[in-house]
């Protein structure tokens, strides 16, 4: 078994004067200090980043971060898995420990993407869909249209997700968008791709997050550690008839994570999920089993996923309000779960918090995601 022994995160925002390496080092150092562990104890590093090669021509940035932390020689892997880069780095770190290859491993994700001329993210210029005009907001808007058609989900229910996550972010000093926004203002913000308005789309951001993992044997002598019950990575399925209203890849991945952790959705006290767009959070809640299929709109409307409700979702502010530095997000979600499970979340503390789930999803291919991760932690 593996445990989380240290966590670190930078503020998320637009930081023109910061480099990817300095952001990664800031988060990594914070995680080492949190664990009261010297850097030289780390035996492997997994570094997550999605865009540095495309934006700056920088590859293998992970070794720069690990070297700057004072570590030489250890195995370092640079992880790119679109939005799940960070959680995939966590998955690999956990595998390294479970396999016995290492007993202290650092997973760091950092992104610098607030640069002029970034444009809209797509799934790559050689993909046919991209050449036919598929941009990421359109991909999710297509799901929203179908979900509204099949289940009667309303624009107001979509906007409620953004309003909720803005309110949550007010309580998170590291989040990017911390001012509340009314449902009316969210619906009246410029339309990006029908029915998704700008406030329903997550902002790009710079930032980094880091998680230090260790074997149970090492963790036993430390304080404030959080056991990892399961960490699952799966890819999508591409047989030519994508279901845009039900996220089957989510559901498969979550089922496996629940089985491995020997718990079910009813046992989860707090969730971080991939709310890149409002419709995404609704669909993920359904696929994770927090409500019936098609009932994601009613779920957010009921207040069940708001702080104080039955199963708060994205109490950190989520991608929508915390911001989405792509390589860091998957680790930032796990960071939030750890803060909650340690009961150190202050004003945004979820009551009686014993088990948390972090869900992330990345990439787009043939109407499905490319990668999906689910991590379950409990104390």
């Amino acid at each position, binding site marked *: 078994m593996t445990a989380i022994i240290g966590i670190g995160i930078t503020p998320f925002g637009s930081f023109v004067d910061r480099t990817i390496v300095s952001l990664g080092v800031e988060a990594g150092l914070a995680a080492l200090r949190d664990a009261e562990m010297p850097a030289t104890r780390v035996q492997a590093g997994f570094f997550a980043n999605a865009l540095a090669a495309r934006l700056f021509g920088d590859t293998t940035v992970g070794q720069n971060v690990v070297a700057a932390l004072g570590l030489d020689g250890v195995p370092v892997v640079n992880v790119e898995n679109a939005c799940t880069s960070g959680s995939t780095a966590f998955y690999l770190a956990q595998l390294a420990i479970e396999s016995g290859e290492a007993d202290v491993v650092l997973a760091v994700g950092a992104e610098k993407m607030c640069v002029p001329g970034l*444009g*809209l993210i*797509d799934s790559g*210029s*050689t993909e*046919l*869909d*991209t*050449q*036919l*005009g*598929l*941009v990421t*907001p*359109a991909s999710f*808007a*297509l*799901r*929203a*249209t*179908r979900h509204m*058609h099949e289940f009667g989900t309303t624009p107001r229910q979509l906007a409620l997700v953004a309003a909720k996550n803005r309110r949550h972010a007010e309580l998170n000093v590291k989040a990017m968008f911390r001012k509340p926004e009314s449902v009316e203002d969210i619906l009246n913000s*410029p*339309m*990006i*791709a*029908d*029915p998704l308005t700008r406030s329903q789309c997550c902002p790009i951001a710079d930032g980094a997050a880091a998680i230090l993992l260790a074997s149970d044997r090492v963790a036993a002598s430390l304080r404030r550690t959080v056991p990892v019950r399961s960490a699952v990575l799966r890819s999508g399925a*591409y047989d*030519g*008839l*994508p279901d*845009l209203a039900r996220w089957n890849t989510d559901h498969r991945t979550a089922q496996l994570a629940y089985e491995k952790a020997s718990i079910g959705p009813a046992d989860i006290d707090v969730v971080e999920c991939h709310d890149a767009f409002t419709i995404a959070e609704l669909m993920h809640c359904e696929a994770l089993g927090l409500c019936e299929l098609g009932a994601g709109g009613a779920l957010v409307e009921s207040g069940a996923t708001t702080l104080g409700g039955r199963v708060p979702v994205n109490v950190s502010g989520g991608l929508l309000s915390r911001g989405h530095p792509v390589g860091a997000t998957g680790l930032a979600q796990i960071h939030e779960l750890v803060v909650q499970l340690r009961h150190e979340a202050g004003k945004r503390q979820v009551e009686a918090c014993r088990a948390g789930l972090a869900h992330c999803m990345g990439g787009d291919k043939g*109407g499905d995601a490319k990668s999906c991760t689910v991590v379950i932690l409990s104390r």
Partner: protein
Amino acid sequence: MSNRAVELPIFAEGIVGFGPPPAASPYLVGGHCSSCDRWYFPRVDRCRHCHVTLEPGSLGSRGTVYSYTIVRTKPPLGLPQPYAVAYVDLADRPLRIFMLTDPVKTDDIAIGQAVELAVTPLGVNRHGEPCRRPYFKPVTPPRIR
């Protein structure tokens, strides 16, 4: 359509075919596995399941809208602002594909709508050169609003 426009290349190779003159009606081209009878769009080298080489084949030119959206933000590839896209269930093959829809009448679209393929000069290809693109347009006459 001017003669010059007819000479513009299709945005990508192996995607669109044209029927016999004079109509030269456009149709979509995909890949077919003669071993398991699966169809692919776009055509890739090999069947994912049998690993035999795929043959090119017609996917037809008609379908039904499964979902759609109108992209209103700054468009890529020289596409118009706004432009509309959809997932379409093909009439002739068991495929649900992503495609542009009528670039002029972007609002005339609905789930369940019957559509047929057309080709027009539209935007630039990934090398920045003006090109033609396929799109689906309604088969039924536009609804009176």
